[in-house]
């Protein structure tokens, strides 16, 4: 059995029933990148974000015996990150000022599975999309990122951020429209170049 091929529910079950440390490591490696980005969105400090995510995972290990009772672990850890981040901000009493998405992007590695040419193409396109997504209000940009990069469902995002699914849908539509506009511009160019 390869841990990398397990669903989150399977990892959750292995940790709960067998205290499986490899499963725990896999869970961390799979969820932590998105969670750190999410925490950075609140606390604007990569190191603090890493510590917050670490605290959430400590909680996961402490409560491993009851882990099977958690219906949606992904939502659970994201809600925990949100709460821990708020606590952190309260304790620091700093004013919340939201980090631009581009900075989060840069702190995380670029994919290594693309061909060089593809990278140039997608990098340019990504850059353009990022620029336009960055012009969105930060909350909207973060919702877009959660849906796209973390594959979170509308209902899950609503639960994590404690807002209505309708609001999530509206925000996502705005983001998707921006993305579509950039892509259309690009495809137009490609079509024109070909003809």
């Amino acid at each position, binding site marked *: 059995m390869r841990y990398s091929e397990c669903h989150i529910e399977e990892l959750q079950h292995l940790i709960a029933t067998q205290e499986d*440390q490899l499963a725990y490591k896999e869970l961390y490696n799979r969820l932590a990148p998105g969670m*750190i980005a999410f925490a950075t969105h609140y606390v604007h400090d990569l190191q603090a974000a*890493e510590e917050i995510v670490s605290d959430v995972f400590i909680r996961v290990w402490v409560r491993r015996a009851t882990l099977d009772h958690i219906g949606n672990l992904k939502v659970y850890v994201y809600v925990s990150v949100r709460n821990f981040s708020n606590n952190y901000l309260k304790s620091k009493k700093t004013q919340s000022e939201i980090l631009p998405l581009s900075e989060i992007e840069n702190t995380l590695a670029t994919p290594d599975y693309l061909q060089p040419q593809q990278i140039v193409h997608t990098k340019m396109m990504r850059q353009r999309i990022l620029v336009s997504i960055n012009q969105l209000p930060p909350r909207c940009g973060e919702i877009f990122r959660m849906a796209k990069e973390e594959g979170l469902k509308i209902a899950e995002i609503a639960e994590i951020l404690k807002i209505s699914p309708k609001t999530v849908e509206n925000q996502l539509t705005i983001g998707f*429209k921006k993305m579509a506009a950039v892509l259309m511009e690009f495809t137009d160019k490609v*079509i024109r170049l070909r003809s």
Partner: protein
Amino acid sequence: MPDNILLLFMKFLNGEASVSEEQELEQFRKMNPQLQVVFEELAGYWMDRKKNKLEDSYFERHLQRLNAADPPLLLSSKNIVVPISEVKINKKQIKVWKILLAASVFAVVLLLQFLFNKEQADEKTTSSFLAGETENVFKTGMGSQSRLTLPDGSEIWANANTKIYYDKNFGITNRNVILNGEAYFKVAKSKELPFCIETNKISITVTGTIFNVRSYDKEFKAETSVFEGSVRVANKGLNKKTFVLKSSDKLIVQGSSSDRVINTIEGVGNAANGASQQEVLSLSKIIFDPIDSLVVETAWMKAKLAFSDESFEEIANKMENWYGVSIVFENQSLKKMRFTGRFTKETINEALDALQFTASFQYQEMNKLFTIY
């Protein structure tokens, strides 16, 4: 492009569009073929998730924090994969520690008592076979597999829904394990201490070999398939024979367990002496498929559900473990239908649909309970 279509498309890409929403989207796409390229590009970009990988140092730092937490939350010593740093306890913490320790000892005693009572109820063979007082239990859940390295260096790969018991003196005074389920054994060589496996149907003794055993308590059949070396198998049923199996041999003991006897008694009255006649011992060879070099007996280890000329009843048992569902037959004659097949990523519905191609039966699903009729 209209907003609502964009949202629908995004829902579709994230796998959360309803059937009617998908239809609406499909209709729009048919009416606007010129937008096809845009849809494709959108899908390509959306699905191209950044596979963010953290450097290993992140998890290591996390472990340090985990280990430094108060009280220390050391990852257990069982199957250690991560370095556990030593934690220094200062004097202030000791008082708290003592209370915690006392509390946890009490909790462990309660837990052991609970577990012991629970296990005693369903495992009578355990206490007599295992000499030590405390035993270790290794379990896998429905639809999951796991690997275990025993103190003597032997490796066990357990299939879904399997329980393996071994006592605390394992590797010192004995190498006895009790198995209820299916497992692949890679036994470390030791002439002095034979490795013994007890199931409710067979006893196996080896010194150092590789083999697969499938013997779920609830099934009527026990299978032993040898890949390397030799294995001694004793039947615990009515026909108490002992066999020595060599590489690529496979022994099937069918219908000898006590469950079977109970079954016949429960059945029609004239089956009173039917138990002994129903017991079948058969020796065959491991089934090796040259096309994809897959051995049916160990297909489960490669995340494959495979069966070769097996009855629907046997396949249903495998499927129950594989998919973590329950399968019941409303029409008993269907149990005898035979299939050969192989599934990898298929869902249970896809697998059953595939079987329906070659045989006529229907099935109904309700809350993970599949009724075949």
